[in-house]
């Protein structure tokens, strides 16, 4: 009887593991029995902006039918240490950490808000990937210094 009890307990443990919902499909229970804290390996490096600053320069409307000025900059983002070949893939998200109400910021065509949005899936780890940053200032916006900060999040796939 005691042996049966032990077997039943073991089976229950197994079932609880296999039937646990996948977080990707709405399950939100975390597996707490992690072996060890993962060493990141996904640290972000702005290769073309090592100080983490991109200067859009002077943004001035040049006329025309479009009632906004769009300034474009490209930053090269590397995930992890440089490598000759991709060492896995990751999902890149971006959001406005600090917004300047006078402008709209887009990364690779995606309009940023305070909520992280996916910029790139399957981004190669170890390789620098260019991302196009657009700063759009409408003609009715006030002049003066502009400041915004883009938060980036990377998660392994």
């Amino acid at each position, binding site marked *: 009887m005691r042996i049966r009890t032990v077997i039943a307990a073991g089976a229950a443990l197994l079932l609880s593991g296999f039937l646990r919902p996948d977080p990707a499909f709405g399950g939100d229970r975390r597996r707490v029995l992690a072996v060890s804290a993962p060493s990141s390996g996904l640290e972000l490096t702005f290769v073309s902006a090592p100080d983490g600053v991109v200067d859009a320069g002077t943004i001035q409307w040049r006329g025309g039918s479009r009632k906004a000025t769009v300034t474009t900059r490209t930053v090269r983002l590397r995930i992890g240490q440089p490598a000759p070949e991709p060492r896995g893939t990751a999902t890149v998200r971006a959001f406005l950490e600090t917004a300047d109400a006078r402008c709209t910021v887009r990364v690779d065509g995606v309009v940023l808000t305070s909520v992280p949005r996916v910029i790139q899936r399957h981004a190669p780890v170890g390789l620098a990937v260019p991302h196009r940053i657009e700063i759009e200032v409408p003609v009715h916006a006030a002049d003066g210094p502009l400041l915004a900060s883009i938060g980036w999040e990377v*998660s392994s796939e």
Partner: protein
Amino acid sequence: MKRIVVLAVAAFLMVTTAAAADTSSGTLTVTGTVASSINLTIESAGGTTSGTGTASVTSALGSISKYGSAPAGFTLARGASNWTLSSTIGVKVDKANLTSTDYTLTAQLGSAPASGITWKLNGSTLSDASATTLTSTGTYGSTGSYSWDVVVADSAAAAAIDNAIDFTATSN
């Protein structure tokens, strides 16, 4: 039986330690300076024009004479000792990132007019020496129409009358 229990627990450990995505984050600061600006365009003019809607427009009048016909977009009025070609020039000034509510528009000839030729805008005679104010309360975004007259004295030599009218808009 002990072996069964060990296997069960090991399987449980394998399942529960899988996953937990690796993540990282960073911040990129964007700086810049929004500068105010205004933009002047010539929207219309008499004659055969090219470049309307830009800041550099050409108007060709062709061959003109007192007793000939007026060029396209002009009227011709014959006087006792001169004759006048009349039309209008449409000038538009747009603003961006600017709080100014109106502007001043001036005009000046690019070179001295040929002898016997008088250039007028809004009734004022233009010169190449100083600018003439056309309006000091121009409205942004709307096309202002200014009368344009070329007065030719009967005594003027038969020659080209080529010239340029330089417009300057200044925000108030």
